[in-house]
């Protein structure tokens, strides 16, 4: 079996393992390349439809292309879409200019907390990957969060072979990471093979493109001429620039990502 097929089969196995344990689940869709690929895999796992809600944590600061893509494919793929916002924080005027750690915590982590509280999801599918960031590399495939939403990275449960965690009473919810073993280039090669639609922000215009997308204010494009999926795959084979080099969260201080994640950030 080739590399992409074995990744695909393993991810589908993980997706089904989580659903076998919890029917009350949701997937987080940031509309980026990874979570759109995850959605593609979930549709495959359940033979063409998604038997649970797809949730977009909306900070109101996303690119307009992201909103357009979301609305178009929510309709086309017949998604049960939930748009979750921390409206209170938005009303208070929380914004990146007043502090990025606080902004991410309020508009992403707390928005997610409120949504889980409202819908009582027992598990969430997330499209994080180990090669994106050293902190994410430390994750388990099934990763528990406690009632305060904290990730106890110093005391993670053992995860042997394909035997994933069963939820226990002290877990608020489980994070399920079907794409953890994929690399950035695997994702793009898979997008190419499967012809998965993607937000245009990833494709170069006037010599620049986004490697990683999120909020408009906190993402910077990289220099690139790659304006097709094929060219992106080629670019990734030789680039020495890190995927998240344009993402502000990773840069504020050496351990900002660790702090954000231990508090429940994605």
């Amino acid at each position, binding site marked *: 079996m080739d590399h992409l097929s074995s990744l695909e089969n393993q991810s*589908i196995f993980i997706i*089904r393992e989580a659903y076998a344990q919890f029917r009350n689940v949701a997937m987080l869709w940031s509309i980026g390349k990874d979570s759109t690929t995850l959605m593609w895999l979930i549709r495959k796992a359940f*033979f063409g439809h998604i038997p649970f809600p797809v949730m977009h944590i909306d900070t109101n600061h996303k690119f307009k292309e992201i909103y357009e893509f979301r609305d178009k494919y929510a309709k086309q793929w017949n998604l049960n879409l939930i748009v979750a916002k921390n409206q209170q924080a938005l009303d208070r005027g929380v914004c990146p200019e007043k502090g990025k750690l606080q902004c991410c915590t309020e508009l992403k982590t707390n928005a997610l907390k409120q949504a889980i509280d409202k819908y009582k999801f027992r598990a969430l599918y997330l499209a994080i990957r180990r090669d994106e960031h050293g902190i994410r*590399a430390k994750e388990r495939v099934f990763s528990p969060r406690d009632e305060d939403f904290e990730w106890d*990275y*110093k005391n993670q449960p053992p995860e042997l072979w394909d*035997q994933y965690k069963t939820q226990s009473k002290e877990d608020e919810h489980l994070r399920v990471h079907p794409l953890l073993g994929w*690399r950035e280039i695997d994702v793009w090669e898979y997008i190419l093979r499967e012809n998965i639609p993607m937000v245009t922000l990833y494709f170069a215009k006037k010599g620049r493109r986004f490697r990683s997308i999120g909020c408009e204010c906190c993402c910077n494009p990289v220099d690139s001429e790659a304006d097709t999926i094929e060219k992106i795959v080629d670019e990734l084979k030789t680039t020495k620039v890190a995927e998240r080099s344009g993402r502000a969260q990773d840069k504020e201080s*050496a351990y900002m990502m660790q702090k954000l994640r231990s508090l429940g950030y994605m």
Partner: protein
Amino acid sequence: METLTFVIVGHIDHGKSTLIGRLLYDTNSLSGDKIDEIKKTSKDLGRQTEFAYLLDHLEEERQQGITIETTQVFFNTDKRKYVIIDAPGHVEFVKNMITGASHAEAAVLIIDAKEGVKQQTKRHAYILSLLGIKQVITLINKLDLTGYEQKVFDSLVEEISIFFKTIGLSCSYFIPCSALSGENIVQKGQKAVFYQGPSFLEALDSLESRPKLSSAELIFPVQDVYKNNDKRIIAGRLESGKLCQGQHIKIMPHEQVTSITAIEKFPGNIACAQPGESIGITTADSVFSDRGDIICAKDSRLQFQNVFSANIIWLSKRNFLKDEKLTIKCSTQSTPCKISRIIKKIDSSTLEVIKEDAQDLKNLEVATVEIQTKKPIAIKNFDDIQELGRFVLVRDENTCAGGIVTSL
């Protein structure tokens, strides 16, 4: 291009993370950003550029200079893609080491030439044999600190070889090296003049990706059953053998015989599935099936049983007391069970028999036990079908032990 996943294990401070840093650096696998970040963090902490920071990302790891949690990183050679699993060497984090090692097809055991074979060196080697890892490379590291002396290398190789023999672990290569300076890591070095063998990377390239299964027996454990537009689809991953449309099958343990109408995949169905493939099937007859059933060939003699022996490692700080209620998870099967006999338990680092016919198990103790399950389950020897030959034990929703079936 194929992929090989290997784990790096060994005693704390024997150089696991440094080795990975060296490997990534010398194979040109690091981004400029990463190198800058490492240089800056090292400087901030008042140290020389420390490759270990490539993997030791947690603040606690960098400040204390130890690896706490297992990590995976990637690099390529001309031959294939590699996934490296870094495993912590500290005794406190053995469960993280096992988590990492259980996903590896090969292992690299690293030994500090100056410190020699230590407690975790032996424990990790033992765990590799317990997990059934068949391909091992041993690196005698930090030889620069002992002046690249052959007798240091030879005596360590002899010492660890004797230990490997006791535990039944086979090692393909013993390589003298220095991860810090790069000697014999990617390129053959000049300093260990007595050594004629391959560099570490050459040795890696010579290993085999996932060894072929010896058994062609059809094993398709049921993961879940979905109702899609009036169709009942039995979903799962084919673990071994071949499954084709029209084939006659038997659903165990209820011995229902039927045939396969279609092998369902999205967007299009397929004629046959191969091992490792996640698929769904629909059947000609309406059968009752549920998670934990095993689909096999019509004439299969797959045995279901409720008593068997196994080697297990206890992974909880709360001791196991005999007669405690546990749950066994083997492939998609799950049923209450108990450890009916602790035949003998041993210290996983010294191999000393602690007790025969014991009444309890402590954290990191390894034991040969007899397990009794409430419902009979399908099990196999690990070397025949891995997925039915290994299992975890769960207590109060937490995984507390891992094990390999030793006799049916």
